[in-house]
């Protein structure tokens, strides 16, 4: 694209959805600027203007035009900067469909259930936990062996979408609430996550685990041990 491309991301450091977009920009070597939002209580006028439907981050602003919803943003980035590798999506329609299918599954089965588990109590929290375990078991079968990444040999859409959630998982190691997500129960996923975090793009973007922990601790969001 043109040398004077302006790429801005409305961000919140803790949002795993925003991390997806940042990882994609880093992987493709696209220059961007971050505008940090003060969430959840102090959303900027710009955010409310550019994402009136959801009022959420991430929002990508490319030459003044806003794009919202992380999965939509990732496909946009892949299409506009299709001359920059890696390609987030494969080139043939069938494999693209598979990638989109799994991206949708990760969003709905893994993320939605993880958020339910982290943010609710009682029966709803149990539901979230059950859904999360089911989803992780399915993803465990999709990677490993000769598949270094979900897309195969190279990082792709599904990897970028799933990896930010792993920094959240670390927090709960301190409270034992997430002991069901372990290397023993999900060896392929843990090996995959390690491989991802060895990449500069991912290690730069994933918030330091200690910072995540302190944030939750400050806001009293860590549950006490059962």
């Amino acid at each position, binding site marked *: 694209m043109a040398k004077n491309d302006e790429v801005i991301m409305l961000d919140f450091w803790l949002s795993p959805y925003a991390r997806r977009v940042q990882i994609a920009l880093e992987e493709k070597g696209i220059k961007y600027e971050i505008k940090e939002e003060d969430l959840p209580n102090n959303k900027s006028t710009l955010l409310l203007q550019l994402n009136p439907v959801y009022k959420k981050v991430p929002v990508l602003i490319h030459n003044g035009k806003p794009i919202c919803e992380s999965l939509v943003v990732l496909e946009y980035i892949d*299409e506009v900067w299709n001359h920059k590798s890696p390609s987030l999506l494969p080139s043939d329609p069938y494999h693209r469909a598979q990638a989109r299918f799994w991206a949708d599954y990760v969003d709905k089965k893994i993320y939605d259930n993880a958020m339910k588990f982290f943010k609710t109590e009682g029966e709803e929290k149990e539901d979230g936990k059950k859904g999360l375990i089911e989803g992780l078991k399915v993803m465990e079968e999709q990677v490993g062996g000769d598949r270094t990444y979900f897309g195969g040999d190279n990082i792709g859409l599904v990897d970028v979408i799933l990896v930010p959630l792993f920094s959240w998982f670390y927090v709960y190691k301190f409270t034992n609430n997430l002991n069901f997500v372990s290397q023993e129960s999900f060896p392929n996923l843990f090996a995959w996550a390690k491989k991802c975090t060895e990449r500069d793009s991912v290690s730069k973007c994933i918030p330091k685990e200690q910072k995540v922990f302190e944030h939750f601790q400050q806001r009293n969001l860590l549950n006490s041990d059962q």
Partner: protein
Amino acid sequence: MGEVKLIGTHQSFPCARIEWGLKIKGVEYEYLKEDLSNKSDLLIESNPVHKKVPVLIHKGNPIAESLVILEYIDETWKDNNAHSLLPQNPYERALARFWAKFIDEKCVISVWGACVAQEGEEKEKAVEGAIETLSHLEKQIKGKKFFGGEKIGYLDIVAGWLSYWLSVLEELGEIELVNAERFPCLHEWGKNFINTSPIKDCIPPREDVLAYFSFGINYVRSMAPNKA
């Protein structure tokens, strides 16, 4: 281009989306009618993760999830004569995908919620929420014949359930969400959409849709916790 099969049920609007997409592209296909109360081995093998319809099988390869299938159809059948479902420009494509997700996630859920809710404050609130959701679509269609412009596109196909299935839900839920007074543009769009070929060739009989939805609504209502 290879053999095309669609596993589906006619009452299901996600399945209708696929028929519309295939017909617009002029693709011949075989419809494999599925009995959802007795799922076939083929469905379970082709969509082991969700075991749901629709599933497109092309050259033996299965693709599931209606929005994913629509993009696959658009990418696979794209010679010069084929009508493009998604816009060409990446920004316009991003907008189409954004609104498609909004329709499939927010609209469907809020409309369903408004129908299922029983009388009282809960229902009022649910109806208000559904109207608010739909108001975003009214803004999007204003000044346009179709979401895709002059011709039906991807977003029209995704929103298509609003032009027919919605009225069945409104009847069962005893509510009115889209009418000419409240949403004139969306209402007009719905009439244009449902009366255009090939859309109107894939509409199931109303009594089948009624039966399909009322089963679901009764089930959900029966599962709701009793309120003191």
